[in-house]
């Protein structure tokens, strides 16, 4: 691994940039942000992610209806433009089967709920899964990997064997088992205080808590391995040794020397894993163990809509499009972040 060479390509920069930059005093974060801001794909991705987060936060104000507001006369209806986009969706007036109702921007689902509003609200679940999933797995993985790599010896051995064994479980089966296990407490008469508390919290979160726990418990191993590997590499680096010798505290070594090295690979693997976190949630909805109805989630909407893809494609395609955009953006943002945080590229173009 190369040591940072901040001044290496300084001559390639324009004068204006030269003037702006003070390489010596620039912090790692500033440096990263600057490089991130120059990556157009990443910036676009970031904007979409931010829009998504805003959408999730402002859903109650933005949504024309509440996500669970049903209308039994408007079930499966669609606005005119949708019936034109999907040629199979022939309106009733034209001898087809689709109820046309222009009050709904994207159409209504089988309970007559507004698809657009549900997509807005649904972003809450998908965004939180996309963020909390990686955060949990990074937290657990970072801790395990750090301890294993730093302590070494038998601690390392045991932790890494644990990681190997966790890998040997089929994830889906394990998540379903966990979900069945956790959810069994619902409505039970005499659960223990902890179970009762967790069950209540889960119910208040629309069933999301246990999905997080399920994902967290099955997805931290990659991060642990990665962090451990980087710690081992970093431990041997001269500047880390030097830092240790001059009496730097472990906390500082981790923060200054190890974190920068692992954060890039961590981000890229985790952004790559985001689709799989979201697909876990979609899969759980697919088999009816996802978030509690009527809370919408994109995965759940897609799973439900996929059954109707022949007659009401709008019910699956629009949430799928939203999901697609989000994952797309997360990926480009992730790539950009990785490049920006890569210490070997630090200060370079």
């Amino acid at each position, binding site marked *: 691994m190369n040591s940072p060479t901040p001044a290496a390509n300084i001559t390639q920069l324009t004068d204006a940039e030269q003037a702006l930059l003070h390489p010596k005093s620039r912090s790692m974060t500033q440096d990263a942000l600057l490089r991130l801001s120059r990556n157009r794909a990443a910036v676009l991705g970031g904007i979409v992610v931010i829009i998504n987060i805003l959408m999730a936060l402002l859903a109650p104000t933005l949504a024309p209806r509440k996500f669970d507001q049903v209308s039994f006369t408007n079930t499966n209806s669609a606005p005119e433009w949708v019936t034109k986009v999907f040629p199979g969706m022939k309106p009733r007036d034209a001898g087809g089967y689709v109820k046309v109702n222009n009050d709904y921007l994207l159409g209504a689902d089988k309970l007559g709920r507004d698809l657009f509003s549900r997509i807005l609200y649904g972003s809450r679940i998908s965004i939180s899964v996309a963020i909390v999933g990686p955060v949990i797995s990074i937290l657990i993985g970072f801790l395990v990997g750090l301890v294993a790599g730093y302590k070494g010896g038998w601690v390392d051995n045991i932790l890494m064997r644990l990681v190997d064994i966790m890998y040997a479980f*089929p994830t889906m089966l394990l998540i379903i088992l966990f979900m069945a296990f956790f959810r069994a407490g619902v409505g039970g008469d005499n659960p223990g205080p902890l179970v009762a508390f967790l069950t209540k919290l889960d119910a208040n979160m629309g069933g999301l808590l246990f999905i997080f726990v399920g994902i967290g418990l099955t997805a931290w191993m990659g991060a642990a391995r990665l962090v451990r590997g980087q710690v081992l590499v970093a431990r041997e680096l001269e500047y880390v040794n030097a830092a240790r010798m001059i009496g730097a505290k472990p906390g500082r070594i981790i923060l200054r020397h190890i974190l920068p090295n692992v954060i890039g690979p961590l981000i890229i693997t985790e952004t790559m894993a985001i689709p799989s976190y979201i697909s876990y949630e979609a899969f759980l909805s697919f088999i009816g163990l996802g978030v509690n109805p009527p809370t919408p989630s994109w995965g759940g909407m897609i799973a439900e809509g996929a059954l109707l893809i022949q007659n009401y494609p709008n019910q699956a395609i629009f949430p799928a499009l939203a999901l697609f955009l989000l994952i797309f953006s997360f990926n480009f943002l992730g790539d950009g972040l990785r490049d920006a945080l890569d210490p070997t590229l630090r200060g370079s173009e």
Partner: protein
Amino acid sequence: MGKFILRRVMWMFLVLFVVSLVTFLLMHAVPGGPFTAEKRLPAATLKQLEAKYNLDAPLHIQYLTYVRDIMVPTITSGKKSSALDHKYLINIPLNDAQNRVIRWMDFGPSFRNINRTVSDIFRDNLPVSMRLGAAALVVTLTIGLPLGVISGLKRNTPIDYAAMAVAVMGVSVPVIIMGPVLQYALGVQAKILPVSGWGDFKHLILPAFALGIADSALVARLTRASLLEVLSKDYIRTARAKGLAERVVVLRHALRNSLIPIITVIGPMIAYILTGTFVVETIFGIPGMGRFFVTSVSGRDYPVIMGTVLLFAIFLVLANTLVDIVYIWLDPRITYE
């Protein structure tokens, strides 16, 4: 080398032991049993069934019996027995006067598919998943690797962005959308490929594509990242400085070394993809193993849960061992002595 194999085998047994024990305890901790159903069985019938399948024994006895039935081989003699053939995974006839047969690995009966055994499921349904998985893996690699290499070499150009967009598209369209759309377009409308079913090569195409495309995105992005990293290494600069043709530099030096992280990911991927996928198999009506990973849990089909988990663990350990060996080939500096 012998030591390495021995260590691996011992390690595999440890993994299988831990995995099976944890699964065993977890599945018994989840409420409901294999005979819990919409139409509840009368208490007397339930009791008889539990006795028949040894479910009334204490848990540790059940576990030990389970392990014994798998591990300990037996020799049977006498008339040919279809029942025993189905019960054991491995039946080796000795073709002698007493008609003796060495039988090994009894994974137990399926509670859900009442007349089948877990060995039957392995025999009939696993090869289907393995064939589908192998085809999907081919799709993954033929799309993923070139895409990753191209975008890695043309970094930050429109080609790079386009290639990555294609890759990400593959991963962000869920299979539950991709599958039906493919079926509808190519099966119902164009009628060039069968909608569902299993048997011929043409049955394989749509599901292999639907299954392989998502992973190909992962492979493409990894290849790109890893190739970029390698290309910045000193020895590549040296190779370039020596005046070697760019094609040689990339193919001979860079690509080979950038394969290591990809191989690491492909190991577990192989295990997952060869043991079957629930959604794809359901959508395309494929009689593979994948569904058992889901239906066994929801039906509390204890022996099938255990069987599928063990199967997956074995595949994973084998795949990882394979990966370790490929490492040696890719990077001669690595040894396992």
